[in-house]
C-alpha cells in the first residue's frame, strides 16, 4: 500500500495540459514516485493517506496515478433535477435513484405528483428531498442549492429540466408570454447552473445535463418563445462546456422529440396522429427512454462535453 507524502492542485497549467490537475509525491516500499491524482479526490486528500499507485497510458506517455483508499462518502452521489415532479424530470429522477443517486427533486411548488415521486425514490433506498423553487428567480435558486448542499453535502449532477410552454403564433403572442417562457426555460438554466458551479468546482468536478428540445432545431410553428429558449440552452451548454472543462465539469444538452408527456398529450388527437406518422419509428418516446440517455451522460460519457444529443426516433435528422 502506497502513502501520499505531498500534493498540490495545479491551477496555472503549462501546455500541453488544458485542465487543472493534482500532482503529488507517493511512496511505496521506500520508493518515491511523482504521481497524478484524479481531481475528483480533491476534497478527501490528506498527507499520509494510503492508496495504490497504478500506471495509465496517456498522450504524455505512461503516467503513474495515486488512487486513495475508498473514502466512505456521507450518503451517496447527489443529483439535483429541476421540474422533476412529473414527466421527463420524474423519469430522470427515478432512473438516477435506481443508479444510486440521492435526489433533490425540484419543482415550483409541492404537489401530490411530487410527493409520489419522492416516495418512489425512497422506496429504492435512496434519500430524496423536495427542493421547492421557481428556477426563474435567482435568489430562490440560490436558497435551494444551499439547502441541498447543506442536507446532502454535495451536488454531483445537475439536470436542468424545468420548462413550460405557452404556444401562440408570434402575432398573437404578448411580450409577457414571450418573456415568461424565456425566464423559465432559458434564464432558469442559467440560474441553476450558476448556483451549482461553485460547489462542483470545489468538489473537483460534476455533470450538467440540460434538457433542450428538438424544437430548438426544427422551427415549430406556434412555439417561437419555446424554440428560442431551447436554442439558447444549446448555445449556453457549449459555453459552459468550454469554460468549466478545466474543472472536470462536463456539460451536455439533450433534445427530445415527441415524448409521451403532458405537453404532447395536449396536442389535438388528429395533429398528434399526423405527427407520429412522420416519425420513422412510428411512436412517441417514453420519458424513461430520455432518462436513460441522461443517466448515461451523468454516469458514463466521460469523453462527451459541449454536445447536443437528439433523442427523437429519427423525426428530425
Amino acid at each position, binding site marked *: 500500500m502506497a502513502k501520499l507524502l505531498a500534493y*498540490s492542485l495545479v491551477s496555472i497549467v503549462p501546455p500541453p495540459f488544458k485542465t487543472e490537475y493534482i500532482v503529488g509525491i507517493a511512496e511505496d516500499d521506500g520508493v518515491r514516485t*511523482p504521481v497524478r491524482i484524479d481531481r475528483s479526490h480533491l476534497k478527501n486528500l490528506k498527507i499520509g493517506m494510503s492508496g495504490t499507485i497504478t500506471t495509465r497510458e496517456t498522450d504524455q506517455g505512461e503516467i503513474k496515478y495515486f488512487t486513495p483508499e475508498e473514502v466512505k462518502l456521507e450518503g451517496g452521489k447527489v443529483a439535483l433535477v429541476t421540474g422533476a415532479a412529473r414527466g421527463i424530470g420524474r423519469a430522470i429522477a427515478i432512473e438516477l435513484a435506481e443508479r444510486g443517486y440521492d435526489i433533490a427533486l425540484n419543482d415550483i411548488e409541492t404537489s401530490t405528483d411530487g410527493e409520489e415521486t419522492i416516495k418512489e425514490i425512497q422506496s429504492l433506498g435512496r434519500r430524496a428531498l423536495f427542493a421547492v423553487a421557481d428556477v426563474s428567480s435567482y435568489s430562490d435558486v440560490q436558497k435551494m442549492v444551499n439547502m441541498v448542499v447543506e442536507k446532502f453535502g454535495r451536488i454531483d449532477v445537475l439536470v436542468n429540466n424545468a420548462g413550460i410552454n405557452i404556444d401562440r403564433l408570434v402575432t398573437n403572442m404578448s411580450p409577457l408570454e414571450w418573456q415568461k417562457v424565456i425566464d423559465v426555460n432559458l434564464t432558469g438554466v442559467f440560474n441553476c447552473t450558476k448556483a451549482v458551479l461553485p460547489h462542483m468546482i470545489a468538489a473537483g468536478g460534476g455533470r450538467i445535463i440540460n434538457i433542450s428540445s428538438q424544437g430548438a432545431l426544427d422551427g415549430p410553428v406556434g412555439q417561437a418563445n419555446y424554440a428560442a429558449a431551447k436554442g439558447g440552452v444549446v448555445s449556453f451548454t457549449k459555453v459552459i462546456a468550454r469554460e468549466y472543462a478545466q474543472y472536470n465539469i462536463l456539460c451536455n444538452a439533450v433534445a427530445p422529440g415527441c415524448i409521451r408527456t403532458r405537453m404532447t398529450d395536449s396536442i389535438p388527437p388528429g395533429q398528434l396522429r399526423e405527427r407520429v406518422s412522420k416519425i420513422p419509428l412510428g411512436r412517441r418516446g417514453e420519458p424513461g427512454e430520455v432518462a436513460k440517455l441522461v443517466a448515461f451522460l451523468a454516469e458514463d460519457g466521460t469523453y462527451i462535453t459541449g454536445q447536443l444529443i437528439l433523442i427523437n426516433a429519427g423525426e428530425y435528422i
Partner: protein
Amino acid sequence: MGEVGIVSFGHTKYGILKDDTSNLIGSVVEECLSRVEKGIEPKEIGLVITSCADDQFSNQHQTGALALRYLKNLDAEAFRVEAACSSGSLAVYLARKMLNAGYVDNVLVVGFEKMSRLPTEVATSVLIRGGSPEENRIGITQPAAYAMMAQLYMEKYGATEDDYAKVSVKNHNNALRNPWAQFHKKISVEDVKSSRLIASPIRLFHCSPISDGAAALLLSRRPRDYTDTPVYIKGMALANDTLGVFERDDPTSVAATRKAAAKAFKEANIEVKDIDFAEVHDAFTPVELMIYEDLGFAGKGEGYRLIRDGTVEFDGALPVNVSGGLKGKGHPIGATGVGMMVEIFLQLRGEADQRQLPDVEIGLAENHGGTGATSVVTILGR
C-alpha cells in the same frame, strides 16, 4: 595572488521592458565599463561570461559573442553558462575560478533574461524544465514543486500560511526603496492570502514575477588597479542535488544550499553570526524560510520564527532581501544571481541610497536553480 574583487557593475531596471536581449546586454556592458573609477581599456578584459536560463526567452544564441560587440574587444573570449535560476551566480563562480587560475586578469559577467517575450503559459512550460524529467512529464510545474515543499514544511514544523504571506509582504516593502524593482506596491497578508491560487498552497503573491532585466559585474585579480573600494569574494561555493523534489531525503530543505553554505563559510573563515545581511532566492516566498535554516540563520524547523519576530526585516538584526528579493525586485532569471551581488556590492560600499543598511561589512548571496538542484552561496566583504 590576491582575492578576487568586484570593481564595477551595470544594472537595468527589472520589469516588463521594451528592450530586447541585445539592448539589455549592451546597456549593462557599457554601464559597467563606464563606472570603472580608475578607467579600463576593453583589451584589459580577457573573458566575458554571459548567463541566461533559456534561449526561448532570449531568442538569441552566442550571447557571449554578442556581449563582445558592446565591450568593443573581439579578442576577448566569450561564452554563456546555464543552470536555471542559478545561471547568474554560476557565471560569477566560473569567472572567479578562471581568475584564481590566472587564466585572465579581468572577467566581465553579464546576466540577463527577456522573459516577457513569451505568453505566461509558454513561460511556465519553459520554467518547468528546471525540474526532473519525471516531474516535467506529469506537469509538476515549478510552483507545484515548491507548493509541495511548502505544504510539507507547514505539516512538519507548524509554519502557517501567514508566515509565508509575511515574507511576501516584507519583500514588497523592501522593494519600495529600490528604484530598480519591478513592483512598487505595498501589499498585506490578506492580499497574499486572497490572491489567485497557482498551485495549492502557492498563490500568485507568493510567486516571483515574469521579468526582463540584466546585470553585469566586472571581476578582477587586481581590483585596486580599478577602484580603491572593491568588494571581495571572501568565500564562494557551488553544490548540487537531485533535480526532482521527490528524489530528496528531506523536501523541506534546499540541501544544495546547505552544502554550498558550509563550504563558503569555511573558505571565508567566518561564522554565521558575522553575516550582516543576505540576498536569498525567494523565487516562491515559502522557500525563503527554509533557506534561513539551510544557511544556518535558524535551526531546523525554526526558520519561520525569524519572520515572526522581525529579525529579517529591513531594520532587523539580520535583514534579508533588502533589494526586494526575487518577489519584489523581480526575477529575470539569468540576471538574478548577478543582481544579488550588485546589491551587496552597493551596500558594502555605502552606495545603496534610501535602502542603505547601516554598518554592514559582510553580505551573503544565495541563488539556487529550479528547486535547488544547483546552488551557489557567495560571501562578500570589503
